[in-house]
C-alpha cells in the first residue's frame, strides 16, 4: 500500500469514482469525480484530533459493523492516505445547518474545509485496468435458518477477520459480539451462498475452504481449550501448500463434519446449530458460542455500472467476462481494457496478484509502441444506400457507430442527409450491425455478405 502511494509514477486518487468512459484503445477519455473530502489534505497532518473530538458516531462499515466510527474518520490506523474525510451524510455540520464545527475548531492546521466541492477531472488514458474486486454475498437476506442476521453471534468470515486483525475493533481478540466474552466453542459453516442454487449462487467461491481452515487454526491458537466444528460439503484445497495447511488445522483439533446446517436456534446465551452428518447418516447438534459463516464472493456493488460504462460483458453471476477463458484471461473484448483480480471471477490472493501482473504486462506491451495497428475486420457503411435509420447504433454492443450528417449534391441542389459512421478503433468486428441493417448498407470487412454467401453456397453443393 505504501509502495503504491509513494511511487513517483503513480497518482493516487482516493475517494474518487470513474463517471464516464469514452474513446478507444490508446485514447480513452475518462471523467473522474473526486468526491469532496471536506478536508484539505495538503494542510492536514493526520494528527487525529478531529476524529477524537467529533461528537457523532455511526456503525463502522469497515469493521463490518462491529464497532463505531466518527463522522470525520480514517478507515484504519494504517490507511493510505492517512488523512480523514468527512462523511457528510452523518455529519452534524452538514445535516444540522452548520450547528457543530467541532473539527474545524480543534484542527491546528486549519485543514477542515466545509465548502469543498466535488471535482470533476477529465483525462485521457491509453489503457484501462479494471480491478473492482468483490463483495460478500448478502446472507442476511437469504438464510432465514441462520437467523437473517438477527443473532449477533452469527457472523461472517470478514467480521471474523476484522476481529482477529490486530488493528481491528477488538485489537485481535476473538470475542462474541453479543457480550464481548471469549467463545469456547466455535462453529464454522461453509458454502453459505455458494454451491447453493436455491439461495445463492451455483459456483464454488474457491477461497472459503482455505480461509475457514485458517480461522479454525486462529481460534485454536488464540483461545486455550477451545473447540472448533466445521460443517462442509467438500473440502477443496487446490493450491501450493494448501492441502498441508488444511491438514495442519485438522491436526490441531478442528472437527470437520460433512453436511449442511439446517438451522440455528438461540438458547440462553448460546446457539444450537443443527445439521446432518452425511457420513454417519445422523443428525448432529452443536451448542456453539459463536458461528462463523463462510459467505461467497460476489461481484463488487456498482461493478455492473462500471461494466456498462466501459463496455465489458458480464457472466451469469455478474463477474466481468474475459476475452477467452484460457488463452486471453486478462483481456476484454474491448481492446485496451484489461481485468485484474476478483472482478473477473472468484480468486485467492496469489491468483489475483498473478492476474494483476499479467494485465500490467499487457498494458506495458501496448505502451511499448507509439502506434498500434488495429484489426481491419471492422464494419463499413455504404453511405449511398444507408437510410440513417440508426438501427445499427442501437444494436452495436461496443458503441462504435454514430450518426453523422453528410452533404450531397442532388440535381444541382445541396442536400443534407444522416448516415451511419463506424469508428474503426471501437468496432470489434462482431457484425451484429450487418445482420440488423435493413437496407444492407453495412458490411463487415473480412466476413462480407458476399464471402459468407459464397461459403454457404459451396457448403450446400
Amino acid at each position, binding site marked *: 500500500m505504501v509502495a503504491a502511494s509513494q511511487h513517483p509514477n503513480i497518482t493516487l486518487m482516493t475517494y474518487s469514482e470513474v463517471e464516464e468512459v469514452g474513446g478507444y484503445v490508446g485514447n480513452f477519455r475518462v471523467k473522474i469525480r473526486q468526491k469532496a473530502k471536506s478536508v484539505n489534505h495538503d494542510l492536514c497532518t493526520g494528527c487525529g484530533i478531529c476524529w477524537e473530538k467529533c461528537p457523532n458516531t455511526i456503525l463502522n462499515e469497515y469493521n463490518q459493523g462491529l464497532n463505531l466510527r466518527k463522522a470525520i474518520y480514517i478507515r484504519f490506523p494504517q490507511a493510505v492516505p492517512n488523512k480523514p474525510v468527512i462523511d457528510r451524510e452523518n455529519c452534524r455540520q452538514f445535516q444540522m445547518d452548520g450547528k457543530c464545527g467541532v473539527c474545524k475548531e480543534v484542527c491546528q492546521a486549519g485543514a477542515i474545509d466545509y465548502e469543498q466541492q466535488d471535482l470533476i477531472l477529465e483525462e485521457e488514458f491509453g489503457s484501462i485496468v479494471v480491478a473492482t474486486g468483490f463483495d460478500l454475498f448478502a446472507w442476511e437476506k437469504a438464510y432465514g435458518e441462520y437467523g437473517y442476521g438477527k443473532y449477533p453471534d452469527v457472523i461472517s468470515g470478514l467480521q471474523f477477520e476484522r476481529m482477529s486483525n490486530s488493528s481491528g475493533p477488538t485489537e485481535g481478540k476473538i470475542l462474541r459480539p453479543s457480550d464481548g466474552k471469549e467463545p469456547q466453542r466455535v462453529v464454522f459453516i461453509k458454502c453459505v451462498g455458494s454451491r447453493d442454487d436455491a439461495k445463492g449462487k451455483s459456483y464454488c467461491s474457491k477461497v472459503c475452504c482455505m480461509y475457514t481452515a485458517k480461522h479454525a487454526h486462529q481460534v485454536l491458537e488464540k483461545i486455550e481449550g477451545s473447540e472448533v466444528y466445521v460443517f462442509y460439503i467438500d473440502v477443496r484445497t487446490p493450491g501450493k501448500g494448501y492441502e498441508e495447511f488444511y491438514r495442519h488445522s485438522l491436526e490441531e483439533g478442528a472437527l470437520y463434519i460433512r453436511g449442511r446446517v439446517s438451522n440455528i436456534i438461540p438458547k440462553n446465551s448460546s446457539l444450537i446449530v443443527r445439521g446432518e452428518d452425511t457420513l454417519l447418516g445422523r443428525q448432529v447438534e452443536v451448542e456453539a458460542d459463536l458461528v462463523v459463516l463462510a459467505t461467497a464472493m460476489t461481484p463488487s456493488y456498482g461493478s455492473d455500472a462500471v461494466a456498462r460504462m466501459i463496455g465489458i460483458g458480464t457472466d451469469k453471476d455478474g463477474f466481468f467476462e474475459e*476475452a*477467452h477463458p484460457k488463452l486471453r484471461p486478462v483481456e476484454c*473484448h474491448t481492446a485496451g481494457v484489461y481485468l485484474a483480480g476478483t472482478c473477473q471471477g472468484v480468486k485467492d490472493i496469489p491468483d489475483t496478484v498473478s492476474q494483476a501482473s499479467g494485465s500490467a504486462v499487457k498494458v506495458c506491451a501496448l505502451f511499448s509502441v507509439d502506434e498500434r495497428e488495429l484489426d481491419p*475486420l471492422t464494419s463499413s457503411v455504404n453511405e449511398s444506400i444507408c437510410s440513417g435509420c440508426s438501427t445499427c447504433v442501437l*444494436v452495436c454492443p461496443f458503441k462504435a457507430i454514430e450518426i453523422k450528417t453528410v452533404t450531397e449534391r442532388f440535381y444541382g441542389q445541396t442536400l443534407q442527409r444522416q448516415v451511419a459512421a463506424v469508428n474503426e478503433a471501437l468496432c470489434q*468486428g*462482431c*457484425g*451484429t450491425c*450487418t*445482420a440488423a441493417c435493413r437496407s444492407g448498407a453495412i458490411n*463487415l470487412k*473480412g*466476413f462480407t*455478405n458476399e464471402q*459468407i*454467401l*459464397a*461459403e*454457404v*453456397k*459451396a*457448403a*450446400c*453443393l
Partner: protein
Amino acid sequence: MSLEKTTAPKPAPAQPGNWEPKIIAFCCHWCAYTAADLAGLSRIQYPAAVRIIRVPCSGRANPQFILKAFQKGADGILVAG
C-alpha cells in the same frame, strides 16, 4: 454461377437408413467455433455431414444466409454462439 455448374448431379436419395441430413452451422469464432475445435482436441466423434461456417459473432448470422442455405438444399441450420 460457375460454382453451381460444377455441382455433380445430386445422388439419388439414399436408403432411408443411410440418409444423413446436411447441416450448416454458423459458429461464433469466440465460443461455438472454439468449442468445435475443443471437440476435435478431445477427439469427440460426430457425423461428418456438418459444415461449420466461422463467423465473428453469432450476431453476424444474417437471416439472408439461413434462407440461402435452405434454398440451396440444407436440411438444418445451427446458429451457435
